[in-house]
């Protein structure tokens, strides 16, 4: 709701530990209990991460639920009992029954079908923001961290500025100017969520840059691009992936908050957020219209957050639970 979460408190604060304390460490290899390093090193790393991830039961269950949600929403055209725009005015405000499993809304549209199609939009926004924000964040972070100096100063002031903007206020104003198509909303939400990744990546780049193997690479004539792609990025996969999962959660919440204020993606395209917005006038007469979209948002965001927590443990070789 408030700060940075900037979701109002706005931004999803990392659930784990305070950022001051939890500066993710990069070089997994250096601290990992000795594992045989050979030509299949990448596989080994992935396998180790997977092994640690599997131990995190909640995260595993969350991943399964999330995957199921994605599949069900993707299969909406085949699963949905009705078209999401079909109006049966004679059946408006039906409570859940055998014809309409989750009831109908004020225009007699089947809620289940709309939830399925709405899920496609809401989830796309979440993942879309993670992709766009991730690319921007990684680009800004690596360039700033690797080049340093003036470029770094400019990019970091830009990051600070973006961090100082209240996310929801920015979105409310920007959505009114730039419109409300899905693409626009993804770009706008990305514009307000890329900074976390950028900061992490910059910090990691700074420390990796000073390592001997980077100097060795430079000595053999590798350019900045090659060093960033081959030496820096592989070392920061963990923190970036974790941060991106949290970005998905924040994006879904921000999109639904924006829709809730009537400024996000507009009906008749359903999203979980604008379905809630459309039904807030009927809370007393048709509570099922409020229950289900909200429950879906909550479930999705909860699963994403648990998944992020599991990934953090899996990527971080220090087992925080034993500390």
């Amino acid at each position, binding site marked *: *709701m*408030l*700060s*940075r*979460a*900037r*979701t*109002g*408190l*706005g931004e*999803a*604060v990392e*659930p*784990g*530990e*305070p950022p*001051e*304390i*939890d500066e993710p460490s990069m070089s997994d290899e250096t601290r990992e209990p000795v594992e045989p390093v050979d030509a299949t090193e990448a596989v080994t790393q992935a396998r180790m991460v997977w092994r640690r991830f599997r131990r995190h039961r909640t995260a595993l269950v969350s991943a399964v639920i999330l995957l199921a949600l994605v599949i069900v929403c993707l299969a909406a055209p085949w699963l949905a009992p009705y078209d999401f725009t079909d109006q049966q005015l004679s059946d408006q405000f039906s409570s859940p029954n055998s014809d309409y499993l989750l009831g109908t809304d004020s225009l007699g549209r089947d809620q289940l079908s709309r939830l399925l199609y709405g899920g496609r939009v809401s989830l796309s926004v979440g993942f879309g923001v993670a992709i766009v924000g991730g690319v921007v964040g990684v680009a800004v972070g690596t360039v700033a961290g690797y080049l340093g100096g003036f470029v770094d100063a400019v990019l970091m002031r830009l990051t600070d*500025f973006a961090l*100082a903007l*209240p996310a*929801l*206020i920015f979105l*409310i*104003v*920007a959505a*009114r*100017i730039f419109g409300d198509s899905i693409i626009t909303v993804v770009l706008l939400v990305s514009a307000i969520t890329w900074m976390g990744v950028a900061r992490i990546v910059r910090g990691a780049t700074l420390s990796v840059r000073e390592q001997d193997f980077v100097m060795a690479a430079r000595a053999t004539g590798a350019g900045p691009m090659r060093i960033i792609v081959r030496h820096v990025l592989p070392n920061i996969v963990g923190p970036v992936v974790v941060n991106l999962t949290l970005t998905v*959660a924040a994006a879904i*919440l921000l999109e*639904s*908050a924006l829709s*809730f*204020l009537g400024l996000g993606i507009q009906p008749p395209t359903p999203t979980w957020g604008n379905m*809630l917005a459309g039904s*807030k006038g009927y*809370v*007393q007469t048709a*509570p099922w219209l*409020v*229950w289900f*979209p*909200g429950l879906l*948002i*909550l479930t999705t*965001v*909860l699963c*994403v*957050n*648990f998944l992020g*927590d599991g990934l953090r443990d899996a990527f971080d070789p220090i087992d925080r*639970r034993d*500390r």
Partner: protein
Amino acid sequence: MIALVVRRFAVAIPLLLATSILSFIATRSVSSPEAGIRSNPRVSAEDIARYREQLGLDDSPTEQYLRWLGNFLQGDLGRSLVSNREVWPQLRTALWNTTVLGFTAIVFSFVVGVSIGVIAARRRGSFLDAGATGAAFFGLSMPNFWFAIMLQLFFGLYLVDWFGLDGPVLFTSGMRSPGTTGFDLMDRLRHLALPALVLSVQLIAVYSRFMRASMIDALNADHVRVARAKGLRERTVVRRHGMRNAMIPVSTQLANDMGALVGGLVITETIFQWQGMGPLFLDALQSGDYVVILPWLMITASAVIVFNLLADLVYTFLDPRIRYA
């Protein structure tokens, strides 16, 4: 430290200027203050022209902005373009209402969150700790607007039905009962409770996680072991040697949140019809009333900047190891 304060303000001023210019452009390009009049068929074209003339809407955007800025710097916020009411009294009332709500929520959340964090840290791995962690994840994942509606549904409808009450125990909208005059503390509290609770859910989650993490670190520190070894009571060890250090990160978070609260309650205030900064902003944006929007943004942005600075100062004050050059 003085250098830090000066530097922060030096950075803040261009930041505020840029914000005001951008939001001026944004507000003016989105909607126009005479839209409401224009939609009324009885208002003639001449009337609209006179209206625009009076408000100076025909001047170039640069002139309009500079005129606003000049007045603003002299402390004159002017009158709303739409209602013609003075802006400052409206802002002052909204600011006060938001502060009441935000402050209540934040103090409540701080006390509850810190307590949960300390208990969880001391009984790490217990059922209680696991429960607190799970609850925090719920709090962080909760869409607050949905939670608000569910609370309204629960208190306004379900509870009343189940127990056959005459009215809701906690009111689901507004700031006081209609028709009441004077100050009735109970009535105010019953209106305050639900919106404050909505805000608290996420705050408690954040504070309890922060506190738990830093408390674990604090209790593992050497000086705590020494304190135990020399035979201090556990209570003294936890309070004097553990909590005092562990509170530092949470306190800075608290200061940051206070700054963010001023403009950050838009959704909660809208749902509960709390006459704070949020509804004022949405209404003014709707009607393109930049005379209201700009000072609104200046106030909320300043709050963020000032409280962030405060957070840093609190940090140096609480942790003497940290010094800003």
